[in-house]
C-alpha cells in the first residue's frame, strides 16, 4: 500500500514539475505567437453559440452571423444599409403578379469545394428544402423556409403552413426562375435570408441522407451541421473549425472568392455570454470586437479609445397590451392614457445607446412604409389622468410583465426600462404590479398566451419590408393582443398581396396610421444594438440588420 502510495505521489510531482518547467521555457514562445497572431486573425466575441453550421436549419442571429461570412444568398442588403442588392444574383425581376421571380446569376463563381455555381445549383438548394421530410419540417429546424415560402411538397403535419413555393427551373446556365403560388410580402426580401443561402449541390447530395431525427424528446441536428468543412458556400471565408468546448468557430480566407477578398487571413468567433465578460475581454485586449454592447458601456469604451460605430435602427420596442387579460384595456381612453403617461423621451435620453429614437409606430423609420402622419401621443401625465378618470378607471391596477436575464437588440436593459415606465405609470395614478419572468420560455410563452396585461417586447426586421414588422402582430386575431378589429387587419393585409413596391409602401403607411389610431399597444423606442471594435481595427460597415460582413475588416 505505502509503496504504491509513494509511487503515485512521485508520478504526480514528476508531471507537475514537467509542466512548470516546460511552461517556463516555452512561455516566451507563447508570447511571440500572441505578437504576430493579432496581425492576421480577427477575433469577434458573440453573445451566444451558433446552433448549427447549416444556416438553412437555423433561426438565430448567432448562427447567421457566422455562416454569413461563408455562405451567400441570391440577394443581400447593401453594405451598411437596408436596401436589397444582388449577391449571387446580379439582377432580379418578377412578373406583375409577383409570382415568377427571375434571377440573372453571377458568372464564374466557385464554391469552396471547387464546384461551379450556376442555376442548377440554385434549384438544387431550393428543391432540397422544398422536399424536406420528417423533423426537418419542424419549425424548430426550418423556421425561415416556412415563414417565407410556406410548407413542403408533402406536409406531414396538417398544421404546417401550405406550400407557397412552386418550382425552380434553370432557364440556362446563369438564369434561375423561381415560381410561387401566391404573391407574398416576404418576397423578394426572403431571397436575401441567410437561411436560404446557396450551398454546393455536391455537399447537399452527400449529406441529404443524414436525417434530423426527432429522437425521444429532442430534435437532433444532423451530424454534418455540427462539423466544420462539410458544407461549402461561396462566401469570402471557409469555416475551418468549430471547437465547441472552447466555444470558438474559426474561418479561413477563401482565395477563390469572386468578390473583394477578405481583409484578414483568419476570422474567429468566440462566445462570451455576459455583457461584462465581452466588454472586459475587449478592454483586456483578448478580442478585437464584440456585439450587443451594453448602452452603459458605449461611452466608457469610446473614452478609452475603442471604436463603437452607431448602427441605424432597424427594430422597435413596444409596450404590449393584452385586452383579453385586462378588460380596462379594451377602453381606447385607457390605452391612450397609458400612451400619454409614458415618458419615452426619457428612455431614449437615459437608457438607450446613442442613436436610439422614440418609436412613433410599429416600425422603424428605415423601413419602407414608415409614415409621418401617424397619431403621436406626447408625454402628458395630466392628460393621462384626465383620460383615466373620463373612462372611470382612476386608481387602475394592472399587471406588468418584463423579462429578466436577457438583453435583446431592441431592449438593452429590460429591468431599467420597466422601472422607468412603471414610475411613469405610477405618477399617472396607475398601480402597477411587476411580474418578472425568465426570458425564454416563461416570458415569451406568457406573452404569446396573452396572459400579460402589460408587457415589453420588440422585433428586429429580417429584411426591409413593412409586413415583416406589422404583419407579425396585426395580420389577424392574436392572443398576445386579444382584440378583433377588421379595420386594422384589412389595412395591414392590404399591402402584403400587393406586387408593386410603390403601392405596397403606400398601403403600409396607411396601415401604420390605422394602427396608431386604434393604438393596440404603445411603440416605445427603436434602439441601435451597439457593436464595438478594438483601436487597431478598421471596422466593417455596420448594418442596421446586424448583417456585418467581416470580410471588410482589416488591421491598421
Amino acid at each position, binding site marked *: *500500500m505505502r509503496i504504491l*502510495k509513494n509511487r503515485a505521489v512521485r508520478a504526480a510531482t514528476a*508531471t507537475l514539475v514537467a*509542466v512548470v518547467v*516546460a*511552461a517556463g*521555457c*516555452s512561455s516566451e514562445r*507563447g508570447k511571440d*505567437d*500572441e505578437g504576430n*497572431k493579432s496581425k492576421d*486573425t480577427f*477575433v469577434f466575441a458573440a453573445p451566444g*453559440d451558433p*446552433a448549427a453550421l447549416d444556416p438553412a436549419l437555423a*433561426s*438565430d442571429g448567432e448562427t447567421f452571423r457566422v455562416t454569413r461570412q461563408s455562405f451567400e444568398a441570391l440577394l443581400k442588403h447593401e453594405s451598411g444599409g437596408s436596401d436589397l442588392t444582388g449577391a449571387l444574383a446580379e439582377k432580379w425581376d418578377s412578373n406583375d403578379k409577383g409570382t415568377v421571380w427571375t434571377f440573372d446569376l453571377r458568372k464564374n463563381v466557385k464554391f469552396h469545394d471547387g464546384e461551379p455555381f450556376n442555376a442548377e445549383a440554385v434549384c438544387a438548394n431550393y428543391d432540397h428544402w422544398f422536399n424536406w421530410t420528417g423533423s426537418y419540417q*419542424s*419549425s*424548430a429546424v426550418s*423556421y425561415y423556409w416556412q415563414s417565407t415560402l410556406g410548407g413542403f411538397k408533402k406536409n406531414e*403535419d396538417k*398544421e*404546417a403552413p401550405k406550400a407557397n413555393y412552386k418550382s425552380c427551373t434553370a432557364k440556362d446556365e446563369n438564369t434561375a426562375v423561381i415560381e410561387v403560388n401566391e404573391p407574398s410580402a416576404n418576397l423578394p426580401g426572403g431571397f436575401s435570408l441567410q437561411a436560404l443561402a446557396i450551398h454546393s449541390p455536391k455537399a447537399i447530395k452527400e449529406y441529404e441522407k443524414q436525417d*434530423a431525427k*426527432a*429522437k*425521444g*424528446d*429532442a*430534435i*437532433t*441536428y444532423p451530424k454534418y451541421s455540427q462539423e466544420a468543412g462539410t458544407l461549402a458556400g461561396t462566401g469570402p471565408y471557409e469555416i475551418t*473549425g468549430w471547437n*465547441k*468546448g*472552447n*466555444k*470558438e468557430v474559426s474561418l479561413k480566407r477563401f482565395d477563390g472568392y469572386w468578390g473583394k477578398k477578405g481583409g484578414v487571413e483568419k476570422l474567429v468567433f*468566440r462566445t*462570451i*455570454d*455576459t455583457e*461584462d*465578460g465581452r466588454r*472586459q*475581454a475587449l*478592454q*483586456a*485586449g483578448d478580442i478585437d470586437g464584440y456585439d450587443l454592447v451594453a448602452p452603459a458601456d458605449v461611452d466608457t469604451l469610446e473614452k478609452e479609445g475603442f471604436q463603437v460605430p452607431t448602427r441605424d435602427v432597424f427594430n422597435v420596442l413596444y409596450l404590449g397590451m393584452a385586452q383579453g387579460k385586462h378588460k380596462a384595456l379594451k377602453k381606447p381612453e385607457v390605452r391612450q392614457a397609458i400612451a400619454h403617461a409614458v415618458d419615452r423621451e426619457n428612455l431614449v435620453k437615459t437608457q438607450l445607446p446613442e442613436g436610439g429614437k422614440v418609436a412613433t409606430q410599429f416600425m422603424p423609420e428605415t423601413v419602407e412604409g414608415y409614415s409621418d402622419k401617424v397619431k403621436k401621443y406626447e408625454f402628458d401625465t395630466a392628460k393621462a389622468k384626465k383620460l383615466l378618470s373620463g373612462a372611470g378607471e382612476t386608481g387602475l391596477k394592472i399587471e406588468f410583465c418584463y423579462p429578466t436575464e436577457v438583453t435583446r437588440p431592441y431592449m438593452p436593459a429590460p429591468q431599467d426600462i420597466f422601472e422607468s415606465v412603471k414610475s411613469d405609470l405610477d405618477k399617472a395614478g396607475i398601480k402597477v404590479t411587476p411580474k418578472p419572468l*425568465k426570458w*425564454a*420560455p*416563461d416570458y*415569451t*410563452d406568457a406573452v*404569446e398566451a396573452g396572459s400579460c396585461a402589460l408587457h415589453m*417586447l420588440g*422585433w428586429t426586421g429580417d429584411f426591409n419590408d413593412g409586413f415583416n414588422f406589422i404583419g407579425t402582430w396585426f395580420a389577424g386575431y392574436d392572443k398576445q393582443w386579444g382584440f378583433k378589429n377588421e379595420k386594422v387587419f384589412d389595412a395591414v393585409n392590404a399591402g402584403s398581396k400587393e406586387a408593386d413596391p410603390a403601392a405596397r409602401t403606400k398601403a403600409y403607411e396607411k396601415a401604420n396610421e390605422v394602427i396608431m389610431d386604434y393604438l393596440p399597444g404603445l411603440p416605445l423606442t427603436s434602439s441601435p444594438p451597439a457593436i464595438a471594435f478594438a483601436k487597431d481595427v478598421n471596422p466593417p460597415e455596420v448594418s442596421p440588420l446586424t448583417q456585418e460582413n467581416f470580410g471588410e475588416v482589416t488591421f491598421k
Partner: protein
Amino acid sequence: MLRLVVRRLLQLIPTLLGLSVLLFLWLNRLPGGPASAILGERATEAEVARINRLLGLDEPVWIQYWRFLKRIAQLDLGTSVRTGQPVWDEFTLRFPATVELAVAAILIAVVVGVPLGYFAARRRGGWLDVTSVSGSLLGICIPVFFLALVLKGIFAVNLGLFPSYGRQSTGIDATDVTGFAVLDGVLTGEFDASWDALMHLVLPAITLASIPLAVIVRMTRASVLEVLGEDYVRTAEAKGLRSSVVRGRHVLRNALLPVITAVGLLTGSLLSGAVLTESVFAFGGIGSFIRQAIDGRDYPVLVGFIMFIAMLYVLINLVVDLAYSLIDPRVRVH
C-alpha cells in the same frame, strides 16, 4: 475491495430510479417548453404545439417516463433540446474543463489551507490564528460572482496579467487528446498550450477556491487542535523525538484524516457547482452549460446532468473511502 465497488454501484441503481421519477414529475411542472425556448419571440402558439407534438411532450407523463426509461436502459441520456446534440457528447465535451477547474481550485485550497490551518492551530489565539481564520471566513462571505468580477477587473483587465475569459487563447490551436487542456499540452509536447491553459485557469480557480479554502483551513485547524491533545502525541514527545517527526508522523498524519473526506466532498460540490464562476469567466465547462440548459428548459440535459451528478457523488465517496482505507489502518476495506 472490488466487492465494495460493485456493491456501491448496485446500491446506486434504486437511488437513480427514484431520483429519475422525482425529476420527471418535477420537470413536468416547469412552465413553458423547449419549443418556445428555441424560437424566442418568434414562437407562435401553433409552432409550439407542433414542436411539442413532434417531441411527444403532449403525451401523458408516464408514457414519456417509460420512453425515458427505455432510453436510459440503452445507456442513452437523450438529446439536448438546445444544441440538438446527444447529452452524453455534450457532457464529455465540457466535463474535462470543469474537472480541470475543480481540481485546480481544490489544489489551491489544500496547498494554502492545510498549512494555514496547521499553524493557526499551533499558534492558537495568536495573530496568525485570528487572521488566517477570519481571512478564510471572509472568503466565504464574498458573493462568488462579485469576487470573480473584482479579480477579473483587477488582474485581467487593468493589470492584464491573466486572460479574462475562456480556456485557451485563440492563437494556440492545441491538439485535443484527453480534453484536459493542461494535460494535453504535456502529452503532445505543446508546452506553450499547457502554459496558456494554466494561465486561463488561474483566476477562475482562485475564485472557485475561496469557499473550499475556508472549509479546509477550519477543519485542519480544529482537527490539529484535537490531535495535539492526544496521548500518543505526548508519548512521541516522551520519546524525545525531533519535533519535525512529532509533527509530521504523529500530528499531521492523524489530523489530516477528516480533511481528506472534506476534500472529497468539496471536489464533488465543485464539479457540480461551478455555475457562477464559469459563467463570469465564460469558461466552457459544464456549469455554464447547465445554466443555459435551465434557462432553455433543456429537460434531457437537466435529467442527464442530475443522473450524472448522482453517479459522480457515489464514485467520489467510493474514492474517499478507498483513500481513507489507505491512510487509516483502522478502516481497512475487505
